[in-house]
Every structure is written in structure tokens, then in C-alpha cells.
């Protein structure tokens, strides 16, 4: 079984890309994460993550049209790749395994 190097934030980004399906580009991803997770996402962190994910092959990109809002600059749309899908599945599966392995008593905690 291959090890998939996937940081926490990167995982979130991939998931959001998958969520957005055909609408996944920089600003949209940022807004989605901020809305869903109530955390602030800096452009720097996000774009770095995008670059790294693309380098690893988990996502791929294609250019779209430029819009007036962006002063004519094109949007870059991202999609998850098969490799990326495997990566998040692996992540999900290992998490789930861990969850199932927790004995009842461990989580019996008073708030």
C-alpha cells in the first residue's frame, strides 16, 4: 500500500475541490473553505497548497476564460485526479479504521 503524503490543509483543499466539481478555482475554493470551516484562509497558504498538490499529481488544472472582474486574467480551474481520489480515500479509510478501533470507554468523557 502506497503512502500518500497529504497534509491536513491539503486534504481539505482537495475535498473542497471535489465538492465544487466544475467550479473549483482559486477564489471559489477559498470562499468555500472559509464558509464551511469558519476559518480564514490566506491566499498564500492556499495557492502554495494548490501548487504542491498539482506537483504531486493529486489535482490537475486547466485555464478558463478571463473575466472583467479579474482585469481580464484567466481563471485556473482544478479537478481531482484518480490519484488524488485514491489519496483522499486512503485518508478517509485510515481515519475510519482508527475510529472503529477506539474502545467505548475512551470517549466516555464529561464535557
Amino acid at each position, binding site marked *: 500500500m502506497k503512502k500518500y503524503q497529504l497534509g491536513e490543509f491539503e486534504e481539505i483543499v482537495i475535498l473542497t475541490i471535489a465538492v465544487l466539481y466544475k467550479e473549483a*478555482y*482559486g*477564489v471559489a475554493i*477559498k470562499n468555500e473553505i472559509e464558509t464551511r470551516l469558519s476559518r480564514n484562509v*490566506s*491566499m*498564500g*497558504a492556499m*495557492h*502554495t497548497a494548490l*501548487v*504542491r498538490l498539482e506537483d504531486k499529481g493529486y489535482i490537475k488544472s486547466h*485555464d478558463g476564460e*478571463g*473575466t*472583467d*472582474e*479579474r*482585469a481580464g*486574467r*484567466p*481563471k*485556473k480551474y482544478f479537478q481531482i485526479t484518480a490519484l488524488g481520489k485514491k489519496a483522499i480515500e486512503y485518508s478517509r479509510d485510515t481515519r475510519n479504521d482508527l475510529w472503529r478501533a477506539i474502545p467505548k470507554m475512551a470517549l466516555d468523557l464529561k464535557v
Partner: protein
Amino acid sequence: MKYIIPPRLFLRFFRWYCHPKLVDHIEGDLIEVYNQRLTRIGKRKANLKFAIDVLLLFRPGIIRPRKRQQNINQFGMYQSYFKVGWRSLLKAKGYSFVNIFGLALAIACGLVIVLFIHAEVKYDRYHSKAERIYRVTRDFRSEGVVNMHLVQVAPPIGPLLKNDFREIEEQARTRRTNFLVSIPDKSKESSYQNNVFYAEPQLLDIFDIPLKEGNPKIALNNPFTLMLSKRTAEKYFGAERASGKMLVDLNNNKTYEVSGVFEDFPVESHWHPEVLVAFSTLQDSTIYGRHNLETNWGNNAFNTYLLITPGFNANALETQLPKFIDKYFGQYEAPSGVMPSTWTTLHMQKLTNIHLYSQLDSEIEGNGNISTIYMIGVIGIFIILIASFNFINLSTARAVRRAKEAGLRKVVGAYRSQLVFQYLCESMLTTILAFFIALAISPFILLWANDFTGKQLDLTAFLSNPLVGVTAFGFALLIGLLSGIYPAFVISAFKPSIILKGDTGTQGKGMLRKILVVTQFSISLVIGIATLVVYRQLHFMNTIDLGYNKDQVVGTDIPNSLHERYDAFQNELLKNSGIKSVSRSSYIPGSFLNSVNGAKVERGDSLAHVDFAIRNVRIDFDFLDTYEIKLAAGRSFSRDIKTDDSLAYMLNESAVRKLGWSNEEAIDKTFQYGDVKGKIIGVVKDFHMESLHEEIGPLVFFARPYYGIMSIKIGGDIQEGIAHIEKVWKDFVPERPFVFDFIDVRYEWLYNREEKQGKLFAFFSGLAILIACLGLFGLTTFSTLQRVKEIGIRKVLGASLQNIVRMLVKEMLGLILISNIIAWPLAWFLMNRWLERFAYRIGNELWIYLCAGLAMVAIALITMSFQSVKAALTNPVNSLKHE
């Protein structure tokens, strides 16, 4: 939909550091977010957040990689640059020609100058011990001022120095003389041989003198042996082996045996002996005498060379020389109580400095001069500067034409540095072309230069010392680089958007161009003015009244055998009506007077010592007549008065003045010169016995032998006169050929250096002006081309030819006037310094400057007029056709 661009500064910063692949879409994101924030939180906060975003984006994944280009093989680009550069040169043949030719001229000059300087600087350095060799010189002072500094010293000095100072490893003396050579078994005529030197055997240890024949250890040991130079041996003995052969010196009828042959001294030596005679010959008392060698402190005729032990400080030694001189010479001077070191000192001169720095009074041969080297070097640099400025000007002017190409290249993706590199390559291409053309031109310039300097320079010096050649080439490349940088930057700075729209843009800063033109013309003016001043001074020196008449006077050395029979000889000569006057003297006008003795003069009742030096000239009864020298008071020497040839003195006006008398007062005063007390019988009007470099000094004349030179004034036809003299000579002195000089030719030779300087300046100023005008021509051509349309419109609106030409020419004219303003003070200052060298000189006259300035203006006008007039005459239809 409207969008607002976030703060420019940070945006630019972002663009600068961001990886090209990412820049577009991240920027788009930034702008989109910014605009969204604008509506939500207002401008200031949006700006702040934008700035933070940009700063936070400054991370490894996003920053562009250091190496911008990953190109491994640049060769294709270089090929393309070369092709494009070559084509662009061809397209503008006129400019290219001007550029390349101007540069080539300048580089050729530079090459020649480098060769010259190299040749001058390496004098005497070929000896293996050159750094340790010194020459002893001696000066004579009166009242603290040096009035004579001789390169030769008295004979006892050399060996005594070596004895006293252990730092002196070796010493060697030489003494110059000449022989009248006759070969016993050959029936050849006798011939003069000069550059004969008596030389001690140690000379061969100090200097590197390779021998072709003979053993260096013994060749100069025995008296009456000598060595010949290779060419002298060939002269007398042809291809035969010279060693063992005999030759006779008819001056004293002594026979010498040839003990060896030495290789000719190379050009780069301060002396060129042709014969080296064993020094021990001088011990013969009929030639000089051993006693004389050891005790004669007054006969300063011996070149003395010293070899110092390594690492020793010559200056330290020199400070001990006054004590040395007092110790040994003092004994002779004891009676007068005055120690010799107060009026004479010895100095040590480094061998390698002789050629360029030594200008003492009795040099073996005329030396070069370090200031000439500086001058030529500076002029060379100026010429190259002018040519480079041309290059810069023309290239920048043409830049506008390349604008489209530059713009297109940028659009297609060239970095600015690539463009700069491309244009630098082009300018270096031009320079390299110029370099090769310069190599082709150089031989012609060298021909002239060799003629001028009397040297034999040729380009093979570059081959023998490849370092020099490589440096020269590298230097040419450097010129190309430096000249090309500015235009390259100008061209690459064009904004593609503006260019491609069709606007050719401004001409860039006209300021630099103006400055360059002004500098060019200023330099040319300065050199031009210098030329005029030098020639004016030369003219002055040739036409000034010297106080005597040197026309058609012939001078010749008086051989020993003629002394007793002089009167008969003189009579014979005068029998021919063509000979006007014959006389003898110890010096002739145009010589350097180095004979001086102590003088005493009548003051009140006693004789007082004269505290300034009065040099002497021995003359006979006819000298004043021969040279038409005038008397100021009293009378000249006369045959009728018995004591005139022993007790009579004549002084010149300068001497009388310095003694504090008027001319009349001086007559009949008692005057003692050396040991002979006599009376002053006459005062001679001052005349320039020496060159005009010197003030006329106080002189005393007396009619006592020994006379060395005869002066013969020819009245009628020169050829006939000389033929007659020769005939009489043959009768009296058959064993010698008649050899003579023309006094006026000799005189001109005094100013040889100035004449050469004049020619040099003339050449360089011509060159500088040529190059500057080439540049001006190119610039005018260009600027008229730029304004073709404007001229067309003006013509249509009714401007006349005059108006247009005036308009085109006005700007440049202003620049030239400024050049004048700059050049005049500079030239005035320099010329003042130069003129100070002459005791008798022209003033720094204004009209020279005016002349030069006007000439420059005229030349510039002519240069500009070609293009201007042509432009002004074109049919406006042609220029406006394409509107």
C-alpha cells in the same frame, strides 16, 4: 463590469517575484478578491488585506526560480545575433562606414602609439643585470644653481668608488673618441670611424654584450687591441674573420689588433659603440697617460658605469658621495680653502632611466623623453575617445530605427538583458571589424611614424610579445563594450506598446549627444591650437635676428696636422673670390658651451672674484667677420696688436651687464680668466651662440689656441665654394677626407624636437578633426533624415533654402561655439607651459585662438552643409508623398 486595480506598488512587487507560470491566475484571484472586499469592508481595509496577501504569498512554492532561463544551448541565438547584426550593418552602409572607419583610424593610431611607447620604454632593459646598473654623473654649481650636469666624469672616480664602497660590485669606464681608420694590407682609403670607445674589460661583465668572435675574458685586456661590432667588421673585412687582423689609427699612427667581434648593439640601447678599444691603451702616455688617469679630476670625459650588489639602496650611496669627493679631490683644491663638494657633486643614475629621463648636458646620444611619451599617450587616448564618442552618438541616433525590431522582440518574449546583450554583440562586431581594418591600415601609419621618429617599428613586435597583441585586441573589445553599453540600454528601453503603435518615440536625451560633440570638438581645438602655436614658435625661431649670420657657412673639424699650417691654408682658401672669410674657434654657434673657468675682475684697486660663471669661447681674429657679429664697444682682436693673442679679452653685453658696467666702462678694465690676467679690449653685442631655449649667458672671448673648428663663409655659389675648399684641403691634408657641416643646418637641428612635435601635433589634430567631422557628418545626416517631413512642410509653406539650412545648422553651431569657450583656456594654459621652455618666445597670441576657432567653425559648416543643403533642396513632393 468595472474593476479596480489594487495598490500598484504591491502588485508590482508581486509580479516581480512570482513564478511566471502562476502569475496570471493568482493575480486574477487577488484582483477578484480585492474587488469583493472593496464593497464589503471599504477601500483602506481592502488595501491592507491585499498587501498582507501579497506578503504572505512570498513563499518558496510561488517565487520564481533563480535561473531564469533553462536554455542550455545558446548557440542558435548567437548565430541569429550575428546574422541580424551583420545585416543591419549592411543596411546602413553610410553609417557603418563612418563608424567603422572612424574607429579603425583611432585603433590604428592606438596600435602605433602602443608600439612606440613599448619601444621607448624597453630601452636598456635587455641586460640581465639591468636593474643593478647605474651611471655616475657629475654636476657643477655656482651660487647653488647647477649650470652644468655632465654624463661623463673624471677618470679617477670609477676605481676609487669601487674601492671605497663595498656595495659597488664592479665598475667600468668608457671614453669616447674617433679614429681615422686605415687597413694596412688593403689599399683602401682611410675612413672616419666614430663611436669608438675605450672600454674596460669589466664592461663585458656588467652589460650583456654577446661576442661573435673572441673570448670575453681576455678580449679587452691587452693594450692596443680592440673589438669591432659586427657591421664594422663587415665594413672593413667583408666576410673574412676579423680576429687577428690589424688596423691603424691615422690620428696618431698607432696599430691595433682585432681581438674580437661583438654583436651590434640593439636599437634599444642608450649607446651604440662600433669599436671597443682596450682601456689599458690609455695608459700609453702619448694617448692619455697613466698619471692622468689617476689624478686628472678636471677632464670629465669618462662614462662610468657601476654594478651594485643586489638589494642595495642607491640613494643611500649617493648621499655619501660629497664626502667621497672631498676626500679624494679635496687635496687638489686645498689652496683655495673651498671644498669641492660645494661646487661639484656626483650622482647615480639608474641605467633603465637613462633613455627617458636623462636630458643632461653631454649625453652620448640624444635620448627620448618621458614627457613625449606622456603626450603621445594622452593624445592617443583622446583620439580613441573621440572615435568612441562618435560611435555612441551614431548608434544612439540610429536606435530609433531599430525601435520596431526591439519592440517586436520584447513582445515575443525577450528579456531586456537579452536585448542589451544582442546590441552589445553588434557593437563588438563593429569594433572587431574596425580592429581588423586597423591592422590593415597600421602599416601605412607605421611607415610615416618610422620616418618621423627614426625608428623601425613594425607589427611583428606583436608577434614577438603575444601579450601585447592580446592586450591590444582586448582593449579594442573593451572600447566596443563601453561604447556599446549606452546605445544598447537606450534601444532596449523602448516600450513595445508605444513602438508598435507606430510612434517612433522621442530621440531620447539629446543632452548626451550634445555633450559628446562638444567634447570632441574641444579636444580637436586644443590639439589644433597647439599645432598653430608650435609652428608659430618655430617660425619665430627661424626668423629671429640671432645677432649673427649663419647663411652659407661651412664648419669642419681642424685636424692636428693643419694647426701649424693654418695661415697658409687660410690664404689659399681666400685666393678664391667665392670664399669670403675663414676663421677658427673652439665652439661654433649652435653648440653647447661647456667650457668654464674662474674669473677675476678689477674692482677699485684690487681684483675680485667673479661670483657667477662666465663661459669661454676661443676665437681667432676673423671670427667676428665670418659670422658678421657686431661690436657694442671697443675693438675686436687684431693681428697688428701683439698682445691681442695672449692678454686681450672680449666680453659680451650680458657679461658686462652682470658685472655692473656699461659697455664703454668695460673697456680697458683688467680681467683675469683662469691664470691669465689681461685687459678687456672690446664688448661684443649679444648673439645667440646657443639655442633659443637658453638665455644668452655671460661669455668671454679670447684669441688663444686651441681651436677645434674652422668656419668658412662662402660668398657666391655654394657648389663652387665647396669644390674649391676641397681642392685646397686635399693639398694640405691629403690623408683625410674633407667632412663638413652647414652651420644653418646644424642650427635647425637644435629645434629638431620642436619640429617633430609640431609635425606630430599637426598629424593628430588633423586626425582628430577628421574623426570629429565624420561624426558630425553622420549626426547631421541622421537628424536631417529625421526631419524630412518637417522640412518638406516648411518648404511648402514658403521657407527659402537659407532659412532651412540655417535652421538645421543652428544647433550644431552653438555647440561648436561652446567647444571654443572650453578649449581656449585649456589650450592657453598648456601652451604657456610649453612656451616656458624657450627663453626667447612668442607671446601666447590671441589671434592664434581666433584662427583655430574660426577654422573649426568653417570646417564644421562645410561638413554639415552637404546634408543640409541636400535636404533643403529636395522636392517636398517626395518627402510628403507618404502622408
